[in-house]
């Protein structure tokens, strides 16, 4: 789109990129043409008729093709009718008038029409204050109504479209933005219009209602208050709220968000987060977030929060001072010497992880990342780096997704990968079972659980998929942990890294390996030098353990047992977990909403988050607590300023070299323009004022030599009679500690279930819907059995974090 077009808008000569429609072009030239149905991310439909303008086109001579000149100026021909600015593209020499009496009359008429059956219930409408209809009526509409109140089209108000989103059909202005978003962008066409003409209305008849993990976005782009979330409905007025920039902590995508907060009586006079909104970052999440990010933030505030340090005395946790608690912890850690173990999760910020790693190193202990997935040292070597933007990938590039269900694990990546494919990128999806992304895959390749390494190696063989891949300019590989534990994912990562490295798909923008991690900052932990331990239970037994931001006791009896046999357990967390229940010392940490810090996304972009609400109780930021514990152990670590910790990190860890907080806070102009004062145009997404973040470098971009370890084929357990291979898979909505606090999502989380092929069930004498007992490794649990004929007959599909303590594929007995 390098070609530029010159045209005249309201008498002013402007130059804009070719290919734009008039609304977007005018916007770039600083002229606002009012719209309702047009959205810069959606295909134009021209249905609301708000954007009507006068369009004149230069007349060309039929014979010569040259512009006809009259009185020294090109002759311009205007159509007798007004035309929609949203569906007409700019052309050289066009003359557009947006301010004439004829245009004003059409705008007034359209707003009047839209208001004829509108309920005018702004005082009780959640969108009041950020409503396009309100704003545009003020600017363009008539001030009084000529339509009779009793003749308005009435509907029962509001109706649920599922338990997350409400629909007020009286407020709907039929722009179809929500329907189009679900169809074009989300790929979940679960909204439609029913009926036609004036009785027309939005419906969703999916099971569950509005069955899409992107549903909340429709409430942002709805230009009126027709769609609202159950979470925020009647929660607050937009003008009462403050806004703080943040990063979503629910998955490795790292969506930029804005936390809206308010001090309110119903929260005992506290300042609380009222809603999570997307914040524009075209290179990360554009203007979208998934429903988990939007609705699962509640754990940061509430009764489960830890508010003060505690020490176990006579079997009970008792309140203690910070000094006493950190001193005791330090004492035990010192005593343990090399038996000191840090177990931290990717929920923590880079600053926290850096201090923890420094502490472990200085004290001669170990620092483990709490994760079932390995391979992060390879994403540090050949991961994606500066300039990478999936949003620019298309024809000529290829994306491989292996052993991951992106829709469930990282919804915004799903969305961006899908769009890259629609722009022409080759998409190769390898997974043992069907996933949603298959629908868009250029090639969907099935392999058997355990055969992932071979499946990746086979990609370079002379077959259709391999050829498409190898002749691509750019290749990005996403690898996940579908059916894999630490060893398996390590091997898969090695196979993927080798593929990229051998074929020179590293070290350039839009090339490299991405891990579909479980947590938001797993990548940061890898960069800082954390490793994962295959046999974690063994590694914890008899040790002095410093558990930060993890709940291993909840996650499995094996780990619980190991910790029960640990020498000493210090737990540092935001909320009361099951692991807190066995801790000797408890240290309350601040939630990410209360402090600042940085997270490293799976795409290796470091991004800042900012404090939004006051600190809860006596809690402190993780990095500061670590520094206090360290000081008591005689190790000096920065503990007052997150920015300074980051500077030290940047000076220590090569891939962070050159970065600092100021750099991460830089912003550039992003198109389309959203947020700010023109919410009617892009929706209620916030514009980005606080930083787009920055990519880490890789060994490849630094020009270092890269050597990739050889991938081993994972040995799967052999199955006895009556046993199935239980394979773990990830679900977006699960029963993890932070998720369970979001009551709104309980219905979506559903019951604990496992799935098997109907004939496997028959062989074991089991039937669908039955509660079964699943036992493996001396552990057992109950789950409802579901049948799925797309599965292999040997397989028992077992979602992670759903009450079944499974980290890697195991042989499992299933019985009634």
């Amino acid at each position, binding site marked *: 789109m390098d070609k530029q077009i010159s045209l005249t808008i309201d008498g002013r000569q402007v130059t804009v990129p070719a290919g734009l429609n008039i609304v977007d072009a005018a916007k770039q030239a600083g002229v606002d043409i009012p719209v309702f149905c047009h959205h810069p991310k959606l295909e134009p439909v021209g249905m609301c008729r708000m954007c009507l303008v006068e369009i004149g086109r230069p007349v060309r001579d039929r014979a010569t093709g040259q512009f006809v000149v009259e009185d020294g100026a090109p002759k311009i021909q205007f159509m007798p009718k007004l035309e929609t600015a949203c569906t007409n593209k700019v052309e050289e020499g066009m003359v557009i008038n947006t301010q004439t009496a004829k245009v004003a009359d059409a705008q007034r008429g359209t707003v009047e029409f839209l208001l004829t059956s509108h309920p005018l219930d702004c005082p009780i409408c959640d969108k009041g204050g950020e409503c396009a209809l309100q704003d545009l009526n003020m600017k363009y509409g008539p001030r009084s109504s000529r339509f009779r109140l009793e003749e308005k089209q009435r509907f029962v108000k509001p109706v649920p479209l599922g338990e997350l989103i409400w629909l007020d059909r009286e407020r709907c202005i039929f722009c179809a933005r929500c329907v189009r978003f679900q169809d074009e962008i989300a790929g979940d066409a*679960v909204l*439609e219009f*029913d*009926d036609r003409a004036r009785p027309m209305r939005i419906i969703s008849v999916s099971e569950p209602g509005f069955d899409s993990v992107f549903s909340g976005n429709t409430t942002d782009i709805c230009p009126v208050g027709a769609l609202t979330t159950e979470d925020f409905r009647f929660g607050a007025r937009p003008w009462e709220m403050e806004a703080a920039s943040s990063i979503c902590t629910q998955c490795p995508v790292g969506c930029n968000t804005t936390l809206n907060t308010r001090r309110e009586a119903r929260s005992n006079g506290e300042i609380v987060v009222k809603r999570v909104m997307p914040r524009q970052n075209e290179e990360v999440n554009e203007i979208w977030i998934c429903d988990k990010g939007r609705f699962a933030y509640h754990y940061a505030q509430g009764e489960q929060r830890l508010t003060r340090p505690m020490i176990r005395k006579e079997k009970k946790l008792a309140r203690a001072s910070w000094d006493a608690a950190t001193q005791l912890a330090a004492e035990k850690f010192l005593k343990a010497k090399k038996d000191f173990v840090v177990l931290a999760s990717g929920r923590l910020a880079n600053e926290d992880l850096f201090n923890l790693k420094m502490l472990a190193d200085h004290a001669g202990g170990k620092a483990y990342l709490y994760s079932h997935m390995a391979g992060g040292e390879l994403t540090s070597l050949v991961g994606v780096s500066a300039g990478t933007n999936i949003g620019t990938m298309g024809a000529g590039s290829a994306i491989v997704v292996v052993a991951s269900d992106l829709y469930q694990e990282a919804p915004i990546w799903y969305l961006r990968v899908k769009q890259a494919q629609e722009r022409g990128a080759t998409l190769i999806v390898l997974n043992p079972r069907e996933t949603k992304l298959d629908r868009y895959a250029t090639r969907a390749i099935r392999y058997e659980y355990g055969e992932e390494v071979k499946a990746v190696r086979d990609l370079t063989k002379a077959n259709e998929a391999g050829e498409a891949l190898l002749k691509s300019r750019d290749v990005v590989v996403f690898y996940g942990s579908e059916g894999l534990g630490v060893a398996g994912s390590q091997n898969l990562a090695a196979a993927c890294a080798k593929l990229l490295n051998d074929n020179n798909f590293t070290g350039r923008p839009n090339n490299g390996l991405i891990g579909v991690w479980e947590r938001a900052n797993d990548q940061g932990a890898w960069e800082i030098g954390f490793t994962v331990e295959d046999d974690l239970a063994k590694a914890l037994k008899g040790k002095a353990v410093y558990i930060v931001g993890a709940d291993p006791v909840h996650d499995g009896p094996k780990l619980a047992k190991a910790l029960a046999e640990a020498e000493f357990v210090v737990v540092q967390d935001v909320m009361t977990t099951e692991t807190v229940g066995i801790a000797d010392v408890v240290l309350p940490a601040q939630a990410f909403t209360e402090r600042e810090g940085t997270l490293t996304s799976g795409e290796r972009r470091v991004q800042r988050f900012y404090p939004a609400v006051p600190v809860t109780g006596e809690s402190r930021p993780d990095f500061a607590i670590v520094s206090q514990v360290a000081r008591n152990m005689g190790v000096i670590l920065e503990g007052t300023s997150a920015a300074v910790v980051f500077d030290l990190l940047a000076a220590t860890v090569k891939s962070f070299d050159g970065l600092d907080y100021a750099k991460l806070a830089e912003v550039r102009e992003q198109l389309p323009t959203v947020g700010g004062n023109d919410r009617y145009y892009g929706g209620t997404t916030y514009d980005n004022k606080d930083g787009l973040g920055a990519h880490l470098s890789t060994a490849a971009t630094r020009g270092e030599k890269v050597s990739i370890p050889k991938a081993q084929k994972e040995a799967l357990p052999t199955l006895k009679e009556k046993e199935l291979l239980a394979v773990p898979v990830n679900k977006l909505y699960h029963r993890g500690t932070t998720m369970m606090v979001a009551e709104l999502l309980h219905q979506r989380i559903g019951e604990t279930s496992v799935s098997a092929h109907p004939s496997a069930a028959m062989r074991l004498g089991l039937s669908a819907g039955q509660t079964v007992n699943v036992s493996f490794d001396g552990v057992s649990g109950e789950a409802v059995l579901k049948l799925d004929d797309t599965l292999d007959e040997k397989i028992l599909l077992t979602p992670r974090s759903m009450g079944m303590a499974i980290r890697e594929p195991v042989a499992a007995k299933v019985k009634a």
Partner: protein
Amino acid sequence: MSLAEKYPQEVQQILSKYPPHGKRSALMPLLFIAQRDEGYISKAAMQDIAALLDITETEVAGVVGFYTLYHEEKEGKYRIQVCTDLPCALRGAEGFMGDLCDHLKIKAGETTEDGLVTVEAVMCLAACDRAPMFQLQGPDAIEYHEHMTVEKTMELIGELKQSEE
């Protein structure tokens, strides 16, 4: 049983009319089969067709809702749809409709007590020169009845009743 199992040949024949990327075109003809089967279009039928065409149930429902010949509820087994649009009205259709309803002791839009016929006013049916007229939408077919009188209509209803018994 799904439509594809119940009417394999018809479903196949419908699908064969459209190119593979235009599979969704089969939606409207399949809805007619579903309606013929049950007298209306049930939720189960919509699910069935959605799965067959690889679209969502909501997309199917949106199409059912748009068109007036699809019915989501079971009403009279037969629908007498009288054209009362302008050209027919200029030739006495409204009087005919009124008289017919009086005879059946129902109002426009209602169903006779035995559930046999629903009388509805509809828009132009392309038979303006033969008013009064109506179309009889039954389970299997749509038939035009033109140059009608109340007597002839009552006779027709009598025949329908007989064929039911």
